[in-house]
Every structure is written in structure tokens, then in C-alpha cells.
């Protein structure tokens, strides 16, 4: 299983650590998976989500592999999985479960009732040091109106501010000109 994961890694081209990448298994009947690789402290960690694009109320699974960078030895303690909503102004966090190693893998099942962008946190202890790793997980097709809304808001704000400032400036200039013209007429 472990070597299978790294076989998939090799298929991937320019995978960037900490960035999700997507792959199909060698068996075309297997649904696509999403995986993220990262390096933390003494460990090289790979996280895989099945299916790659889980929908609300659909069963899914997270697989986590952790091996020491120096000697490749698999971590065999306990891993705590948590989940939190990654949307703005949300701090809701729930515990998914604590898992022990099973054939070199930590498996954690999940079902989400709401679509959204979530962060899965995996926590474990090794050598007296805490390890906390965050991975993204997208459920369904969440709306991404936030960035567009923010961009539109900033642009409108800037344009309105400029328009008001410039109108005031032009009115002031007109008034000054008018005042000057009147003064010249009087003299």
C-alpha cells in the first residue's frame, strides 16, 4: 500500500508540497483521489482523500501516511483527526476521531451534511514533539462568491471615493474661479 502511494507520486509532474493534486488509480474503475504531500519536522506526510470530490452526505475516507525522513520508518502511534470550516468568520471545529495504524495507514472516515471548504487537521506526538498538519478538503461545490465580492467592493469603494473627491475638487476650483472673476469685475 505504502509503495503504491509513492508510485502515484511519480506519475505526478510538478506537484507542489502542501498543494492538492489529483490522480486516477491505475485501475480505471477506481474513483479519483486527492492527495497532498508535505514535510513536517522529522516526518514526510502524505494525505489522501477518497473520493477526490466528496459530496454532502456521501461517505468518504482520509488516508494518512507518515514516515520518518531520515530512515523511512513509518510512524506507529495515534493520530487525532479534526475538522473545521474554512469559510471566513467561522471557527467551528469538530473531532472526527482518533486512529491507530492499520497496515501502515491511518484511515479516518467522514460524512459531511453541508457543502463547503473544510480543513482537516491531523495531530500526533513523536519524540515529545507535537505535530499538527492541516489539509484542505472540499465537499460538494461550495460558492466562491467571496473573492469576487471583495474585489467588486474594493473597486466600487475606490471609484466612488475618487469620484467624490474629484467632484469636490472641481467645485472648489469653479468657486475659486468665480470668486476671482467677481473680484476682477469689481476692480
Amino acid at each position, binding site marked *: 500500500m505504502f509503495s503504491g502511494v509513492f508510485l502515484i507520486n511519480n506519475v505526478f509532474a510538478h506537484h507542489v508540497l502542501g498543494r492538492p493534486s489529483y490522480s486516477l488509480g491505475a485501475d480505471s474503475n477506481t474513483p479519483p483521489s486527492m492527495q497532498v504531500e508535505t514535510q513536517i519536522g522529522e516526518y514526510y506526510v502524505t494525505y489522501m482523500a477518497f473520493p477526490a470530490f466528496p459530496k454532502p452526505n456521501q461517505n468518504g475516507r482520509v488516508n494518512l501516511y507518515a514516515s520518518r525522513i531520515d530512515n523511512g520508518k513509518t510512524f506507529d502511534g495515534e493520530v487525532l483527526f479534526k475538522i473545521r470550516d474554512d469559510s471566513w468568520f467561522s471557527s467551528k471545529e469538530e473531532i472526527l476521531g482518533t486512529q491507530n495504524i492499520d497496515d501502515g495507514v491511518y484511515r479516518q472516515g467522514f460524512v459531511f451534511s453541508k457543502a463547503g471548504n473544510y480543513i482537516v487537521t491531523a495531530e500526533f506526538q513523536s519524540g515529545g514533539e507535537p505535530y499538527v498538519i492541516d489539509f484542505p478538503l472540499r465537499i460538494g461545490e461550495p460558492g466562491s462568491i467571496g473573492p469576487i465580492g471583495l474585489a467588486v467592493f474594493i473597486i466600487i469603494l475606490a471609484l466612488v471615493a475618487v*469620484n467624490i473627491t*474629484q467632484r469636490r475638487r472641481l467645485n472648489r476650483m469653479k468657486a475659486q474661479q468665480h470668486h476671482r472673476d467677481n473680484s476682477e469685475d469689481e476692480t
Partner: protein
Amino acid sequence: MIESIISFINKLIYVPDSGMVHPGLPAGWVAFVFFSMVVIALRYTFFAYSSSENVNSFHYPIFNKIIKRIVTRPWILISLRLFAAIVFLVVIYAGLFGTPIPEKNIATVLTWTIWWSGVVISIFFVGSAWCAICPWDAIATWLVRRKLWKRGNKTSSLNLRVPKILRSVWPALLMFVGLTWLELGVGVTVSPYATALMALLMVVLATISLAIYERKAFCRYFCAIGRTIGVYSTIAPIALRPVNEKTCADCKTLECYHGSLDSGIDNTTNAKGLANIEPCPTHLVMGSLTQNTYCTSCGACSMSCPHENVSWQIRGVADEVIHASRTTTLRGRVDEAWFILGLVSLTIFHGITMMPYWEGAIQNFAYTIGDSGQLLTSFSAGMLVSMLIPIILFVIAIKLTQQLIKTKEEYKRIFSAFALSILPLAFTYHIAHNLTHLVRESAGFWNVVFNPFGINALPLGMHELHMRHMNPLVADNIIFAIQGLLIIFGFWLALRIARQRLYQIENSKNSNNFALIPILVFIAIISFADLWLLMQPMVMRM
């Protein structure tokens, strides 16, 4: 003999044990490029300056009826801008709402594989034409000016002068470094969502800049893409220029600089341009324009000119930059020199990050310093070192050149003068590198055109990946030939410019060619580094 050379070159090529990589230049081509460069270097070091090096530049204005209508009327340009803006909005929408699979979403495929790879290559053929239809500027202009192509009203912008501290290309260079960091470190290229955010950010920056500052400060000072296109386009064989130089010399009204009036009529001659056209966005006067660096090809000058005296001009490839190296004074444009040096460093850095061993090296470094997560600290350190090495070498080369010339010119003037000579190195390597992305990674382009949001799309399977890998748009040998010839051309042009700069500094045709050796060594090091990067296998981006 030849076999042993080929065998030696093959030993320099790193072949990864596994993974998908694009093939690098074969040893035969590497040998050909290497010996061509040696011959060119000997010719420029040991042979005296000859009059045959004088520039016999040709320039031919294209001004037939069709071109005349295109450059003096706005409709074709507006149509292209509208098309680019619509595509750009589709990219943003697809990035935010489409599939996160990068190779199946039009946001990542079009932005990084097609546009960013293609735009650098396009400069070689159409100069700064991209800037004319740039959707960032087009959308910003429509939002701020609230006009499709004419001048905005007086309340649309504060029209402030750009603060003196920002009136240079330093902001553009910093933006280029930032974009490279986001592209290669954070991995924006493999995230449709992040690509869309970046696109939105650019529109916001262009809009705010246009609303606050006069003319188009974003294009002139801040835009990394625009400035890159600008400096590269000095090598391009096409540019907007006067049809008749005397007409410009006699012009008193300078509509190209000021824009046209309400009537668009020049009362002194009764000649007629279009009314209410914007002034030149980057403060250029067509009659005195000798370098394309800041021309955005927006067409305002050609539309506003009452004499219809501005059009596209065909000229020899690199004529402008060769001419500039002979005629421009040794201005203290240190910012432009640093921008060119930045381009040299960043293009090499792009190549390095796509070597199969880059990721392993960064991971090892991260483990040593205790870096975790996306390893951005380690990446940033690697980027800094990769950028500093060419910069330090150039600084040393210029110092040595200054001592060999025995001139009283200030160091920064010599630094700026010779920076022009390394521009071709950045440009030719950039094209050669991007060519690989464009012809080897764009195989799935039509799939994303027909399904831009990647609805129900699956990631690439092994078979599809291999098929793409094995079937580039252009045959391998053609790609290798173009890449090899580009490196030779860049090396030749760099040396030619360097020698003319030397001649200009010493102000003598009997210039001391040996004073050229430090800069020649620098040019050779960069060219061999480029060649070495091209001969290594390159990791597939998507």
C-alpha cells in the same frame, strides 16, 4: 573524438530514475551550440572592431489601406480587447467555480500553459502587441473612464502624479519577484482557485492605480508583465513608429503625447485624427521614440495623429537594441539595468525549479533547517541564492571591466550600459524554456475549451499522461533546433551589444577588446548555464 565529446556531454545530463519529464537538448545539439559559441567568442575577443559592424538597419512602415484603417480606427482593437476581457472573465469564473483539477480547468491551462508561455514567444513576432489588448488594463479603463475607448471625464480619476520614489521600474521588478514566488513557491500554477485570485488582484491593482494616478501608471511603472514585454520588445521586428519622420519633426501639436482635442482637427493643417483620444499612457512622444521599452502598442498615438503618421513598422530583429547600444547616451537608468538583471536571474531560476532534483534539494535543505509545511522558507532561500549568484557575478564583471577600460565613467553608468548586453540572454532563454511548456503541455487545450469549467472531468490517467508526453505539438527535432539556435543567437547578440557598449564608452574604434573579457566571461557563464538547463530533462508542469 566526436563520440567522446558526445559521451562527455551525456554524463552531464541528469536522468531521473522515475517520474514524467520532458527531454532536454540532445548531446549533438549541445555540442553544436557549444562550438558555435566558442567561435563567436573568439571572433569578438580577438578581431578588431570593423566597420561592417555598423548597423544597416532597415525599417519599412506597413501602411497600406487595410493597415491604415486598422491603426487609425478603434474598432478592431476594441473587438480584440472585448474578446480578451471576456476570456479573462471566463478564466476568473472557472478558477473560482470550476474543477480544482488544474489540467482540466481553463483557468490554469489558459493562464499558465498557453498565455504565459505564449506571450513571451509572441514578443518575438509582434512586439508589445499583447499590452494593447491586455484585459487587466482594458477592464480597469472601462471601469474608471466609463468610456469604451475615448477620454474619460474629469471626475473619473484623481490624475495625481506618481510619487517620485515610484517613478521607476523597481515596483515592476518587485512584482515580478513576487509573482515568481507565488508561481513556483506557493504553486499558483497548479491551483485554478489561486490563479483566479491572482487575476482578480491584478484587476484591482490596475483599477486603483488608474483611478488615482495620471495616465496609466500601472502599465508604466508597476506591471511586471508589461515591463517584461517592454524590454523584450526592443528585440522584436515590429513596433509602432512614425511613417514619415519629417512629419513628426515638424509637428507642433503632439497629439501622440497629449491626446486629441474635442474636434480632433489640427487647425494649422486641417488634417483630421479621431476626437477625444487618450494621451499616450506612458508619456511617449512618437517623433522622438527610439526604444520600445515603454510602448504598450495601445494605438492612441495612431488614432489621435491628425496626419495619420503612425503605423506598424517592420524592422530587422534586434536592430533597435543594437542601434540603442551604439547611440544612446550612458544614462543613469539603474532601475532598467536592475530589471534586466532581474530577468536574467528569474528566467534561470524558473529553469532550475523545473529540474528533477530541485524538489529533493529543497526538501533536504528544509529538513536541515527544520522548515515544515509548504517549505516556503526553504524555497525562498533557494530563490534568493539562485537570484544572487548572477547578480554578484555581474557586479564583479562590471567592476573588472571598469578597471580594464581605465575610464572615468561612474560605476553605475557602466553597470547600466552593459546591462543592455545581457538582455538577449534572458529573452532567448525565456523563449526556449517557454517553448517546452507551450508545445509539450498544451495537448489538452481543446478539451478545456469545450469544457472550460471541467464539469465531471477526471484527472489525467496514466495512459492520457503518456499520450500527452509522447505527442508534442511540434516534432522534437524542431523544438531542439529552435532552442539551440536561440541560445546561439542570444550569445551572439549579447557579445555584439557588449562590444558596441565598450566602443561607446572608450569612444574609439581602436577599443581594447581585452577589456571585454570580464563581461564576455559573464555572458558565457549565463549562456552555458542556460544551455545546461536546456539539456536537462524538465519536470512536466501539469
